[in-house]
């Protein structure tokens, strides 16, 4: 039995009283339990890099497994199971991103650490939205948002404004609004979105809450000194000489 003291041990798309008996969900639950049993111990930040690298690979494998099983239930038209497996896929992805965040942080690669933090936020948000069973992860989902404020400085984000001439629904390819798919809802184990196919740029803004937190100011130049916005290391000085980063 998996330890219930581990946050990751909660991570199961079938782990709710209304659980349905679907072989693919049972298979994913078993795979998740197996990975949690071995690798959940690596989730705290202070664990060794070697443990965390192995664990990140294991959760990455779980993401692929969820996608494989999801394809099978989608083939049967089982929308609810597909959404549950999407939730599981997101949970595994969130745990993987959290591990990769710690790895990058310890390796001193702060840009990657930031991107993995955002990946974890996006994945947990996906888990919460994919299916009502995601509600059990609300407490865990706030962790990467807390990490953002504890580990990183205030970041200036960029936002691109566009005039969209043509776009497609990511589920069916129709013009959004003309089909029955609603952005943010789940269909066939996928979130519906909008793919912009023809647009003209309008403006670039600095915003507090961007759509994608990976779009950020990476370097800051002040008094002829250019610094990395995260590490504050000097990248370039007035005479153009590059500093050792």
């Amino acid at each position, binding site marked *: 039995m998996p330890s219930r003291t581990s946050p990751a041990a909660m991570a199961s798309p079938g782990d709710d009283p209304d659980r349905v008996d679907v072989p693919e969900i049972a298979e994913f639950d078993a795979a998740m339990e197996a990975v949690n049993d071995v690798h959940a111990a690596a989730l705290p930040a202070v664990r060794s890099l070697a443990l965390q690298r192995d664990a990140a690979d294991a959760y990455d494998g779980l993401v692929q497994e969820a996608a494989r099983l999801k394809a099978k239930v989608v083939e049967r038209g089982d929308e609810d199971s597909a959404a549950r497996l999407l939730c599981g896929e997101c949970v595994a992805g969130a745990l993987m991103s959290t591990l990769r965040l710690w790895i990058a942080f310890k390796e001193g690669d702060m840009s990657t650490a930031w991107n993995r933090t955002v990946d974890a*936020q996006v994945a*947990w*948000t996906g888990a*919460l*939205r994919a299916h009502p069973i995601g*509600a059990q992860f*609300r407490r865990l*989902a*706030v962790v990467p*948002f807390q990490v953002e404020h504890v580990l990183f400085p205030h970041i200036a984000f960029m*936002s*691109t*404004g*566009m*005039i*969209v*001439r043509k*776009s497609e629904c990511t589920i069916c390819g129709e*013009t*959004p*609004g*003309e*089909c*029955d*798919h*609603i*952005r*943010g809802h789940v269909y066939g184990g996928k979130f519906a979105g*909008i793919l*912009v196919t023809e*647009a003209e740029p*309008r403006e670039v*803004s600095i*915003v*507090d*809450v*961007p*759509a*994608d937190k990976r*779009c950020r100011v990476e370097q800051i130049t002040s008094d002829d000194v250019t610094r990395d916005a995260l590490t504050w290391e000097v990248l370039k000085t007035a005479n153009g000489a590059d500093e050792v980063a």
Partner: protein
Amino acid sequence: MPVTSASITYGEYPSVAERADALGVRRPTGLTMLPRNFATANAGDDLLAEATDSAVRTLWRQADLEEERLDSPEAPFPRLSEHHADWIGPTIFVSSALLSESSALVAVALGVITNYVTDLFKGVPGRHTASLKVVVERKNGDCVSVAYKGPATKIGEIMDAVTDLTSSDG
């Protein structure tokens, strides 16, 4: 001067019928989404829809609500896409004819939007802001607006404000 109460703002809005004539688009007489720059655009070709109008269109259709479009499926208005995390809803126009025929329909139309936005952000960590404007046409053709801007999960607060506005034209 617009009056602001909490995150609800009441204001005046140009006559939608007159703006429609000036822009060369049809005068809406029912439930309509107005482009963002409907009040200020110089020509019909300049009109820009909100990125969220497609979701609202589908929600309304699935709720069997009849939308009166100012554009057409064959020639939709270009859409504004701003890559921030806020949910910026379209401006909803409620004609005086619609209000006198079926004010309950207005509540349903707004309810499906507010439920969608609330569900989208319920329990999701982080700061999520939503905005939605409703323009109500008086019997004399004048228009007033009520706008919500605030936490996405509280967008339902606009419902009471719209009810106040629509019931005060007795």
